[in-house]
């Protein structure tokens, strides 16, 4: 947290190295949040692009309240939700065709197995109500506490915990026997 505050100070002073450090520090976490929330995983990097450009536009006046990772994660979640709304036609069936746009991916059996697993899990996540999916992803992949999520999405902590519980139960039923659980 202290490092984030220092980075934000430098960022507000126009230090591009600080921006790069923030990006590198949270890139993978944010990509994982985006990947799990988007119906179309090919849009992950577009969402990341939009979030960071939006974040950069606040240089000089950005005030960090809470955790930077939490802030960026919720930005990703909001963008992902908007992207999903814009393209409601994309359902689980389209996920089979979609491929994450990631460069340098090794063509190995490990990668193929990973891809299969990812498609199954993403398909299951996509069948959850948007609110439950968001809470699960932000808590498990974004590592945000329920309290932080509640603050960020403007709901009570009890609502957030309920969504998490119900979502997890449903996800468990959807994935039962499909991924070696």
């Amino acid at each position, binding site marked *: 947290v202290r490092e984030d505050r220092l980075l934000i*100070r430098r960022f507000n*002073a126009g230090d591009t190295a600080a921006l790069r450090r923030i*990006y590198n520090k949270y890139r993978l*976490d944010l990509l994982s949040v985006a990947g*799990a929330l988007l119906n179309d995983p090919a849009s992950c990097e577009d969402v*990341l*692009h939009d979030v960071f450009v939006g974040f950069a536009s606040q240089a000089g006046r950005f005030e960090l309240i809470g955790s930077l990772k939490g802030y960026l994660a919720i930005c990703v979640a909001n963008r992902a939700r908007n992207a999903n709304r814009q393209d409601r036609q994309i359902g689980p069936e389209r996920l089979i065709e979609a491929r994450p746009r990631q460069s340098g991916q090794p063509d190995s059996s490990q990668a193929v197995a990973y891809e299969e697993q990812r498609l199954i899990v993403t398909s299951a996540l996509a069948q959850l109500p948007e609110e439950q999916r968001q809470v699960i992803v932000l808590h498990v992949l974004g590592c945000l506490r329920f309290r932080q999520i509640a603050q960020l999405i403007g709901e009570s902590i009890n609502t957030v915990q309920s969504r998490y519980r119900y979502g*997890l139960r449903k996800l468990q039923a959807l994935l039962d026997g499909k991924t070696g659980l």
Partner: protein
Amino acid sequence: MNEPDKIKDLLRRTYRETPDVSGATEVDERILSDASTTMKQALATNSSRQRVAVWRTIMRTRTARLAAPIAAVVAVFVITFWDRSAGTAWSVEQTIAAIKELKTLHIKGKTYYGSDLVDFECWIRSPGRESDFLKIRYQSERKTVVVRSNVVYEYWPKDKLLKIEHGPRIPGFEFWYRAAQLSFWPTGQMLKTLKLFSDDWKQVTQKDPNTGKELVLVTCSFRPSNTSFFFVVDTESRLIQRAKMWKNMRQEGEPDTDMQTFIYDEEVRDEVFEFEMPSGVTIVNKKAIEESEALCDKAENLFHKEKKYGEAIGIYRQIYDKFPDLNVAEHALMMIGICHGRLGQPDKAIEAFQKATSEYPNLKGWIEATYFYLGCAYMDQGQEEKALEAFEHCLAAAEGVRDPDKFPVKHARECIDRIKIQQQR
């Protein structure tokens, strides 16, 4: 591992342990390049706009009446250090070194509270070796303010009202907290920031006819806040001896705040920066603010959508009675006047507008519209001279605060022209 844990583990394995955790890719470079460009553009546009916006915010809020003298005092405290930079051999490092030597500042003087001139004292302890956070106590017979890091206590002894707030969220104070966060308070960065405040910094050196000492006299002003300053600096100690602040651009008339005595490095007891909860005090808290906002929404709905002006008056009256010290009170009084106007009760409308202008005369950014509506109410009654006076007040109050080509300044000007043409006929 239980079932929920297995799900969580699966999600992490699926989305976090990607097999292509490569370094920077072309996509990353594109994102960073676009973000960097945006960042530079944002800084370029924000830097000029921000200082204007901050000061405009400060001076438009109700808290400005509290914040203005304190802000002036804190500005003096920091500009004192800035003045140490006036010499040709100045460097930020020298100033920062000098700051470390100075621990406290105690100012005594007079300030206007509404139309009354009252004595005040202010103590500031910078967050140096002996203080781990910024501490300020500002005290007058009308108001006491204690700043302890991010917590601000505002106390009105006459009404026994206390407001406890998170400093950085108080509109009039946010700048000071933001500046303090930018760099260690107050440092070279702060000096640079403050240097941006002034539009017309001028300084002349002359000898004190009584003591023969060399003094530097500084004047400066800042247009968006319609505020000007005057400082007297002792060149030997390089410290400010006296300072004044006006709420006009040219140091005209009586200063709104006259800081007559500066005492440096005085031993200040820790208790000075403590806030003791007075007995029988009413705490105006966040809940009150939320309640006032809810009432405002209700009243706005009655006024704009349902056009039930009588009922709206009742709600606005509640707002004014319950929260006279919140921003919404002046607005509520103005709206009461407008409602009476809509109900064809010009006398009552004028009464409400007059009450607003007499109780909140210095509420820049808010009061101009009330003067405008007061002028309109007088015009409706055919009292042209009084209307003219109200419109002139509107123009005077709006100077440096409101856009001259927008409401209410533009409309007030047009009304004045119309009245003058009628009078010529």
